[in-house]
């Protein structure tokens, strides 16, 4: 799970203690956004400073030495500090009416930056649930505001009321600032535990698979150490199984042409202990004619494995819009077609005959010493 990083104070590129860097990494937003948020929060009653302190104390330091030693950029730090001081001077001087505006300014700037950073898809994701829920949210918000306003209007006159609202907002923010790291950490621990459980499940499945297949094969290889052919056969067969398990989507050999011809090649490899390099381009559903093509190709592979005397056998199958082609080729000793006794069923019946009965064709190209290539073609309706 590379998605969400644990909340840790960053070691690289930090200005002060790495709090903003760490938060940015964790939330997946630009570090600039986090820093601006801290600056603005600092101006609005010094909350940013408090929050920064809390994070500093509560969030663990990233356990990794910094990659760059020149890390701190003093110029940037000075810029942030200057911004904080200047802006707070403005708000101090302007008095309490403007101070009440600050939370809105903070919120507005934050939302604007986030919005600008998010891509289209993300925006959609934010807006959709909002659209569905806005009535309820609006209603709830109105109730809360109405309640507070009503309470205050009864008890106090206007000037004091504003002060109380501001004070309670500050208290609320303060409480959440204090509690947030704790809640976040609790949540993270839960998350980590869940991930660990998933991982151990995966490990168990992998262990089971390796036990059933790989360890089994290794034992067989040790027993057959004296027989290189058998060892090679076992190793190839295991390699193929493992590859299929790791890389290929589960496909039913009864359903698609590519899966079927791969399976046929695997069987021949197992039976005859000859490496078969198979490349398949495209795929399609298996029908009767294509099943026959796979059978014919299998027969050609068997012949190549048995008689060529040279490994590997190359198989190339391509599914095109109007036809399916299969080439089975070896660089072995080849033969003269005329020398094949007419009672030998292999090439004539199993390959050529079978293809022709199913509306296809087969050609064999061979000569003594030149290797053999069988070309199968099946037209598609």
């Amino acid at each position, binding site marked *: 799970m590379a998605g969400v990083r644990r909340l840790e104070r960053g070691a690289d590129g930090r200005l002060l203690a790495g709090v903003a860097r760490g938060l940015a990494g964790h939330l997946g937003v630009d570090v600039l956004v986090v820093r601006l948020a801290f600056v603005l929060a600092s101006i609005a009653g010094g909350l940013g400073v408090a929050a920064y302190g809390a994070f500093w104390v509560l969030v663990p330091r990233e356990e990794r030495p910094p990659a760059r030693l020149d890390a701190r950029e003093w110029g940037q730090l000075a810029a942030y500090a200057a911004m904080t001081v200047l802006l707070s001077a403005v708000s101090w001087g302007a008095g309490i009416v403007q101070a009440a505006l600050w939370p809105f300014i903070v919120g507005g700037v934050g939302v604007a930056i986030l919005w600008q950073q998010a891509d289209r898809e993300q925006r959609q994701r934010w807006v959709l649930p909002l659209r569905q829920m806005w009535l309820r949210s609006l209603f709830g918000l109105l109730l809360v505001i109405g309640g507070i306003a009503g309470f205050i209007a009864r008890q106090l006159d206007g000037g004091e009321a504003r002060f109380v609202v501001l004070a309670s907002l500050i208290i609320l923010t303060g409480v959440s600032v204090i509690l947030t790291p704790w809640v976040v950490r609790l949540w993270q621990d839960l998350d980590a535990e869940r991930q660990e459980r998933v991982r151990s499940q995966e490990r168990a499945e992998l262990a089971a698979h390796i036990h059933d297949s790989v360890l089994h094969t290794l034992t067989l290889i040790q027993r057959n150490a004296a027989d290189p052919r058998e060892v090679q056969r076992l190793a190839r067969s295991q390699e193929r199984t493992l590859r299929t398990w790791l890389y290929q989507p589960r496909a039913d050999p009864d359903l698609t042409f590519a899966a079927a011809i791969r399976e046929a090649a695997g069987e021949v490899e197992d039976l005859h202990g000859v490496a078969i390099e198979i*490349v398949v381009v495209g795929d399609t559903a298996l029908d009767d004619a294509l099943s026959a093509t796979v059978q014919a190709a299998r027969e050609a592979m068997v012949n190549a494995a048995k008689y060529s005397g040279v490994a590997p056998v*190359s198989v*190339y199958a391509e599914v095109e819009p109007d036809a399916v082609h299969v080439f089975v*080729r070896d*660089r072995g000793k080849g033969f003269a077609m005329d020398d094949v006794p007419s009672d030998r069923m292999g090439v004539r019946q199993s390959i050529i005959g079978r293809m022709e009965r199913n509306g296809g064709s087969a050609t064999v190209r061979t000569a003594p010493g030149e290797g053999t290539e069988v070309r199968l073609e099946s037209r598609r309706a």
Partner: protein
Amino acid sequence: MNRVVLVDDHQMFRTGVKAELGPSIEIVGEAGDVDEAVTVIKAAKPDVVLLDVHLPGGGGIEVLRRLHGTVPSRFLALSVSDAAEDVIGVVRGGARGYVTKTISGPELTDAVARVADGDAVFSPRLAGFVLDAFAASDVPAVDPELDQITQRERDVLRLIARGYAYKEIAKELFISVKTVETHVSSVLRKLQLSNRHELSRWAAARRLV
């Protein structure tokens, strides 16, 4: 004499390759992970780097990214992996070819020489992937020069996928070996540079890029 750096995290495999490579190749460095590879290659400036696709520290593609444009070396990817995204990824990252680790010593020696000469090396499997990726479709190409492979290039790729050596392909198509090499290099260039819609969709379907 081609100077070669060997990058693979399996010591045993490196030893095996060293023993198998012919006398025309001089091993001038070895590395077992990305950082080491970058250092060794920068120092040795070899003609050819034999680069494992799977490496600790980000894989072969990370080595290519970090060395991009800094050394004159050419890269040949080497892998046991069947996964199309790994293979196409490393080729699009700048490798001039891809061979599987089951390749024989003489064939590998040959492939190194080819890459050193600036040609491309396609294994049957890579040829299959490329044919798949550039499969004919009705989608109009954005840049016809880059986004489509010619009929001749397709013929050459098909023969490679069928297990033909360059010499055999030349004979089959009545062209010279040099012409075969030109076609393959041209396909490599398209594979690396094309932003063809189909290619990116194909890559995305295999969680690439």
